[in-house]
């Protein structure tokens, strides 16, 4: 299984993703330059964090139009798994591959800290190595990670089981106090309806090495490596 890690000008978690995937998760990952248009030979697309195109205008607004994103759209349309982390999540929302948008954190500051996440569903190819209700300790690092969607979208996300991760407290409760950025319904990560596109604000690649305090991020990478079969 081969992972493509996209590199936009301004991506800065690309090297971390490749390192975590290759050196720790035991996967095989390689870079794909934003001017490239082919994803042939790759099984999973990772859109890493950073500040693509400086995040000028809005986070992810310009990256959405880059050449490689056309291929990502086709890759996703044909059912290929795509995971967007942090800036990658923002790019996926801007591209319309995921519903909603990510806006400025409620407290207005950039926040870099560990957070707890509750796995809302493991019936996805991004979380199948986890147990529903399990809490994961994975860091965030963003200034614009407050998830917004209108009521109708939120209802359908909920109804379809598209919310995969919610910010929660140590007991696994999605409380206000455990919500670092003001996200609607404590949403930290969602998938698309088809189930093959996933965006999340926390950085699983930063939670793979025990020396960094947590290995819970591996749950997500291992899920992807395991592949996914429709539960019967």
């Amino acid at each position: 299984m081969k992972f493509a890690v996209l590199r936009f000008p301004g991506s800065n978690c690309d090297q971390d993703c490749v390192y975590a995937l290759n050196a720790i998760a035991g996967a095989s990952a390689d870079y794909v330059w934003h001017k490239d248009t082919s994803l042939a030979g790759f099984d999973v697309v990772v859109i890493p964090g950073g500040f693509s195109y400086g995040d000028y205008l809005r986070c992810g607004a310009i990256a959405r139009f880059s050449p490689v994103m056309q291929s990502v759209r086709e890759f996703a349309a044909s059912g290929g798994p795509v995971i967007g982390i942090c800036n990658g999540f923002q790019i996926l929302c801007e591209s319309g591959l995921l519903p909603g948008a990510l806006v400025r954190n409620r407290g207005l500051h950039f926040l870099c800290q560990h957070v707890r996440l509750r796995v809302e569903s493991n019936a996805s190819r991004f979380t199948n190595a986890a147990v529903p209700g399990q809490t994961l300790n994975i860091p965030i690092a963003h200034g614009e990670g407050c998830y917004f969607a209108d009521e109708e979208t939120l209802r359908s996300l909920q109804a379809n089981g598209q919310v995969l991760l919610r910010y929660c407290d140590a007991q696994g409760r999605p409380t206000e106090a455990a919500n670092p950025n003001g996200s609607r319904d404590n949403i930290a990560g969602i998938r698309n309806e088809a189930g093959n596109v996933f965006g999340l604000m926390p950085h699983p690649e930063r939670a793979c090495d025990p020396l960094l305090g947590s290995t819970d991020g591996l749950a997500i990478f291992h899920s992807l490596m395991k592949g996914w079969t429709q539960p019967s």
Partner: protein
Amino acid sequence: MSNPLRNETLAGMKVLVTVLPKPSVLDPQGAAAAEAIRHHGLEKIGRVRIGKMIEIELPEAADESLLHEIARDLLSNPVIEDYELKVVNA
């Protein structure tokens, strides 16, 4: 008007695009600004909203529908923002 850069485009037009957060979207920046304005002595204010102002110099006329497309798809995000577009003579 002594700036030579401005003179270059005096003949042309300008597009002004204002982008404001939709009323239903949390605008913590606006709320913080409201707080600061009250602190500054202007107590009686209603809501404050903060958005973007994009000024584009246009040396020659452009297709309005293209301009609107750019304002809608690139300069704003319709999920969270409304835009207004105005073409003025520079």
